[in-house]
């Protein structure tokens, strides 16, 4: 027995015997968590009890996550409220390795008896799964964090902000939108999340984290004769911040413009299909990055683990791509990170206790690295060794709640701004003879290996001879990923940089929702295929 194992078993025994007994009754009977449950020593004792039960049942590795998610959602339309809901879910999940296979079980009853039952059930799951398995799971080593803590860098906890203030802000924004003639309908919403979670593993880590997310959003509909058009508030992105994000977003001040842009689309010129130069604002480009770079560089997908739903990837096999494949021009650098302040994927430690690092997925236009968990990092061991880099997870494990098993989810994946000079949007436009500027993300669809994609937008501006000359509608571009990114010939500087993101990114079976940010400057692409999406019934 190694010393580490001994120490851990000692702690677990103590949890069940002496110190723990005094604390455990407080958690009995699935009582609601106290506000300070995360720091309550009883929480830690329950986690240790679950780990001990898993080990006793035969697990070679186990982790437990006890978590509470508070969510708030409110919605309005025009001059009235449509819903207001406060959600609260509390429970725990135990993941184990036994006989080389994963097992998982979870429950909403956070009690001493139930953590033992669930830990045993997870081991039974693993044993059932092992009967069909040939290759045992191996985990890359990770640092041990026996007493780690992390909290989102927020200023205002959204759950402490008066309800009246939130409702008032949305209704004022609606009123601004409805002042615009032709703007007939407006829906606006706010979503907030406060997630508190502990992570404990049989390797000796114990981590407490609290993260926040905030997302105000609006959709304006303009109705004309035989036509209707919408504009979504895509220049206000969801963020991993507190209520200060809502206050700083200029949501009310922007509503009139969103409404004007919806109305203007009614009389905008339908696009003539053909090849155009595109100037894509980061309010739009973040989603193209998400779909055509971030998803295809997920290693589980590349290796076939998501083939039945999310799909595989054209970046396969990794050995043919790492260090070899030109994704885009020399000045293209794509970074993965979970540390940027306000990033939706930002976190101190991932859901298997790894401290995420910052890494370049694409370096000078060439594939340089991939997104990994502890199970996956060893699959790239040859590449890392050849590069003189350690075999370690990038900390990309995530589960949407305690009730689902954690798996590989993307970090914040960013297109880095032009490093040589602060290239302006005007400069990017000036060099376009016949093109379209796209602001905001719209319709999006991409194939299961991430080659063929089609993207719409919110606002489309015609560019002729370096100048914006009018508005277009019914625009979508179709692309093949490598050709598209290699057609990028202009990259904006820091001055054009914006962080967009998705609050509801789905992957996995059962489908789990992740939230992720993507920073990007404006960029220019040459001769992209544009279609007209308007059809008559």
């Amino acid at each position: 027995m190694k010393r580490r194992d001994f120490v851990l078993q000692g702690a677990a025994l103590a949890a069940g015997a002496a110190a723990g007994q005094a604390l455990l009754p407080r958690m009995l009977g699935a009582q609601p968590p106290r506000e300070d449950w995360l720091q309550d020593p009883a929480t830690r004792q329950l986690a240790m009890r679950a780990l001990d039960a898993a080990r006793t049942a035969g697990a070679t590795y186990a982790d437990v996550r006890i978590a509470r998610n508070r969510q708030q959602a409110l919605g309005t339309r025009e001059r009235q409220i449509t819903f207001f809901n406060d959600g609260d879910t509390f429970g725990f999940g135990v993941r184990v390795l036994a006989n080389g296979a994963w097992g998982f079980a979870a429950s909403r009853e956070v009690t001493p008896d139930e953590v033992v039952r669930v830990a045993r059930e997870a081991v039974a799951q693993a044993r059932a799964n092992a009967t069909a398995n040939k290759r045992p799971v191996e985990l890359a080593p990770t640092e041990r964090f026996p007493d780690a803590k992390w909290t989102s860098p927020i200023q205002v906890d959204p759950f402490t902000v008066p309800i009246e203030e939130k409702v008032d802000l949305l209704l004022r924004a609606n009123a601004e939108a409805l002042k615009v003639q032709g703007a007939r309908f407006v829906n606006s919403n706010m979503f907030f999340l406060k997630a508190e979670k502990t992570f404990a593993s049989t390797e000796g880590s114990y981590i407490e984290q609290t993260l926040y997310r905030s997302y105000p959003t609006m959709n304006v509909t303009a109705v004309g004769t035989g036509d209707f058009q919408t504009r979504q508030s895509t220049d206000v992105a969801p963020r991993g911040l507190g209520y200060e994000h809502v206050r700083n977003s200029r949501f009310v001040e922007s509503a009139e413009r969103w409404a004007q842009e919806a109305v203007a689309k009614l009389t905008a010129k339908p696009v003539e299909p053909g090849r155009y130069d595109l100037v894509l604002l980061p309010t739009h480009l973040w989603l193209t990055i998400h779909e055509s770079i971030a998803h295809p560089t997920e290693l589980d997908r590349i290796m076939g683990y998501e083939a039945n739903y999310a799909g595989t990837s054209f970046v396969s096999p990794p050995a043919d791509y790492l260090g070899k494949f030109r994704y885009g021009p020399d000045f293209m650098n794509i970074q993965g990170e979970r540390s940027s302040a306000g990033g939706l994927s930002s976190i101190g430690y991932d859901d298997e206790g790894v401290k995420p690092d910052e890494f370049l997925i694409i370096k000078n236009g060439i594939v340089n690295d991939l997104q990994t968990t502890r199970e996956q990092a060893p699959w790239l061991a040859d590449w890392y060794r050849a590069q003189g880099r350690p075999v370690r997870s990038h900390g990309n494990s995530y589960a949407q709640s305690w009730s689902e098993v954690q798996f590989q989810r993307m970090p914040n994946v960013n297109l880095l701004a032009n490093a040589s000079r602060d290239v302006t949007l005007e400069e990017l436009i000036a060099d376009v003879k016949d093109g379209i500027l796209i602001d905001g993300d719209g319709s999006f669809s991409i194939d299961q290996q991430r080659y063929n994609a089609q993207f719409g937008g919110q606002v489309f501006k015609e560019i002729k001879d370096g100048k914006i000359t009018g508005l277009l509608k019914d625009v979508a571009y179709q692309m093949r990923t490598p050709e598209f990114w290699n057609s990028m010939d202009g990259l904006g500087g820091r001055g054009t940089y914006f962080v967009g993101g998705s609050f509801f990114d789905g992957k996995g079976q059962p489908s789990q929702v992740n939230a992720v940010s993507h920073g990007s400057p404006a960029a220019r692409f040459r001769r992209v295929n544009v279609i007209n999406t308007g059809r008559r019934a």
Partner: protein
Amino acid sequence: MPDRKFLSRDEAEAITRRALSFSTADDARVNIQSFTHGNTRFARNQISTAGDAFDGQLTVASAFGKKVASATTNRFDDESLRSVVQTSERLAKLVPEDPEYLGELPAQQYVQNKAFFETTANLTPQQRAQAVMAITGPAERQGLISTGFLDIIVGSQTVATKKGLFAYQTGTAANLTTTVRTPDGTGSGWAGVGENDWTRLNPAELGDRAIRKAVLSRNPKAVEPGKWTVILEPTAVANLVQLMMFSMDARQADEGRSFFSKQGGGNKLGEKVVDQRVQIVTDPASDIAPASSFNGQGLPNRRMVWIENGTVANLNYSRFWAQKQGKQPTGFPDGFAMSGGNTSVEEMIRSTERGLLVTRLWYIRQVDPRTILFTGLTRDGTFLIENGQITTAVKNLRWNESPVFMLNNLEAMSAPVRVSASESGDVGSPVVVPAVKAHDFTFTSLSDAV
């Protein structure tokens, strides 16, 4: 420790009564969902993850006059119930009036649906693993790579109001899907199905279908995008037709922002919008596609005909919009059954001079709500038909098309069958559709994805 996988009627009734006893609001409603969600995933011919989660959700909506708000918890002890009621009441007092709030419903009569099966409720992780092995074993023996997902939900739903309404139903659902790929990466085949009754699933047959498609789909050839005659297998039909069902909201139509809006005002009720052979029905009493007995407000779901002889027979009216328009509220179409014909897929192929056979559709996103135009791609089994025979696998294609156009261009339909209609493979509402042969389906570009 839960010895059952969900709340019984007695337990649910006791909890809702308890929660409502804490209510001081003018009106209140309690919704409970209680369930165990089990799943087994497999990849590369072995189980990758599996788990069971025991959970529940209780939402209390409280109203003071027309000021309404709700709060949700997943704990059902007294302290949590009192707290969730108080939270909803505190919120309700603070929000502005909702002029559309009609109050909660009194007691209602329900049609009992047949969505619960012991065979599904009692399925063990070991049985799930065996089902998976019925797919992975043959795939591996043939040198192929299988990936897939078995998703099981066993649970109950409850609605109770302060006005005396109590509605309770149980249900089980099982969804099994698999994608089998060839090791050279040039072929991929899919098969899947959703059922309420586990015994109606046949994992080995399903795996065999995916295997045959994977082998057949190797080395696909490129064809020109454009207008094609297509034979859409039932899953692909469901992928499209459900988009039309989601668009049948009466209010959106009356407000002029829907395909179902009538030029000059009003909606398309009574107008013929698709081929006259099409009928689409929702029915809680259906054996093959049992819809919920009630909706989230406790409103009874009854048999609803949405499309009859190609004509819009009903739109989805909420309680508020129904009252405003002098209609009966309909409830949301929760699952549906579409009529079919008697042409088998084999006969459709034989009658096709040149066309494409499509297994399923992927990454389906709305492009233009005015025409219910969506885009997406074909996936996991797309084949060229020439002179009545499948001649080769073809590369996948992006399409930009509307279910309305597709259902107007109908040539033939097969007998309808139950499908797995969601792209995700998660358990979803029951959907029954035929395979369809239609002309002039619009493909706009080629994809290299296999």
